[in-house]
């Protein structure tokens, strides 16, 4: 019941997002460019996020398969972002997200996602799901990869429930795009 309510709200927001979300040179974007852009988004969102424990270094956990985030540290250093420790988590572990500040959700089944969201719910873990143009689940940020470009979407409901403070600049930037027809 509750889930469906959220979903409908996200549909509204996400629906607009597809049309004109931030993207990087869609025409000549290569696989590597998309990877760089995704890393940029992840690093940027992390830079605008304030965790309640306010530790300086943030641990990035990657769940599921992601072709783009494999060489994330190298890409991060290339774009001048902060280099974080990246850890791939085992999906069958109980409480796999313990010790994660950011959780990047790659290609996952619905059941796997549900398990992970059940774990992160109520914890200050910033969730970003890859290739989720609807952004209709409990992810705080979603990426939509279209026409060789990447768009960033937000789920304000999840953000407000996470306890992580997101700088309104990001929200403004994303909302501006989402508001466009």
């Amino acid at each position, binding site marked *: 019941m509750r889930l469906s309510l959220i979903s409908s709200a996200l549909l509204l927001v996400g629906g607009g997002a597809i049309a004109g979300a*931030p*993207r*990087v040179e869609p025409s000549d974007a290569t696989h590597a460019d998309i990877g760089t*852009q995704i890393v*940029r*988004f992840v*690093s*940027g969102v992390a*830079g*605008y996020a304030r965790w309640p424990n306010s530790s300086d270094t943030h641990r990035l956990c990657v769940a599921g398969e992601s072709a783009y985030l494999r060489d994330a540290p190298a890409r991060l250093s290339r*774009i*001048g*972002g*902060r280099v974080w420790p990246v850890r791939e988590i085992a999906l069958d572990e109980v409480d796999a997200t313990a010790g994660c500040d950011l959780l990047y959700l790659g290609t996952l089944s619905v059941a796997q996602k549900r398990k992970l969201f059940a774990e992160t719910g109520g914890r200050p873990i910033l969730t970003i799901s890859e290739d989720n143009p609807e952004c209709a689940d409990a992810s705080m940020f979603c990426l939509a990869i279209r026409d060789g470009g990447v768009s*960033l979407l937000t789920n304000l409901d999840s953000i407000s429930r996470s306890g992580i403070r997101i*700088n309104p*600049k*990001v929200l*403004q*930037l994303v909302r*501006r*795009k989402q508001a466009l027809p």
Partner: protein
Amino acid sequence: MSPMPPATPGKMPLGLVLHRANMRLALLALTMAGTSIFLVGLIALRVYMIDNLVLSAHGVAYGVEAAVVFNDREAIDESIAKMVANRPISSVRIFDRDGNELAHWRRPEDDSWGRAKVERLLADMLFPAPATVQIEHDGRAVGTVRLYGSGQDMLIYLLIGIGCGVFCLLPSGLIASRFSRQASKEIIEPLQHLAAVAAKARRERQFGHRATPMAIAELDALRDDFNALLEELATWQTQMVSHNASLTHQANHDPLTELANRAYFDARLAAELSDRGCAARAALFFIDTDHFKDINDELGHEAGDAVLRTIARRLRSQVREGDLVARIGGDEFAVLLTPLANISQASRIAAGMLDTMKEPIALPTGKSPTVSFSIGIAFYPDHARDSASLMKKADEAMYQSKRAGRGTYLVASAATPSEKS
């Protein structure tokens, strides 16, 4: 009094000199004040504009931060356009961390009347370098904002400044001119007044006019001295007139008897005869005191003088207002009766004269001698037409009268050899 008296050719009127000096001073003061205010304004404006440019750069850096972090060029362009739309900025450039240009925004140029060129020139003068600010995110530099200022505000300031300068110069000049004329007038009018009084004194010899009090202290002091000078001149003039009058009197009168003297009598006789022409008759008496020498010898000169004074008084008492009695010698008198209605009138007067001398003359010494006259009478124009001949006729008649036995009068004979010749 005319406001500006005609100046001597080649000489400048005082009003013009004062006015020119005042106007030059006013113009200089206005220009100096205007220029200094303008320059101070220019400097202050430049400082503010540079500050403003840096502030704008910070604003742009803040505004585009997220867009730069997410490498969203569209969002960058939009943010820039929104932030610099109404600011004096000609162009904005955004670079990423590696120096790649992410955005380049340029204000569309309005090139009417070469305005863009002037603005660019002013911008180059005002802002030698663009305002450069780093875009920071999460404690790291993610890019750079470079803002190029526009000369638009400066151009407006310059135009307004020059406009105001010209606009203020006109009324200020007019007011200064008015004040100057008023001040000149305050100085010139008293001087003109002084000049008018001086001219009147010189031309008309009227020393009665005095310059009125003046507002300016120095001029008032000058007026005081001037008035005192006029006073002295007036005194001198009066003294001179009376002195002249007394000299004239002395020259024309006998001091003993106060009768006219010979010179005056001759002049008056000549004047009367020449004025008269043949219109009216005049009579000339030549009177000699009988035996006057004896009085002098026997009673002394003082008695003689007293006798002469009495004779003079008595002679005068017998003639009319316009007639002239003169002492022309020691004991000789002459009388001119004019105008004369008829000959009998002269005879009556002569008889009256002889008659009045019958009364003894009381002297201070107690003696009272009786004196008699011999009178010779000649008529104009009957006996002669010129004064010399007339005198001669009367003189001859007097001698005849003396020979005839003193104490009588005798009218000159009608024809004489001298008149005939």
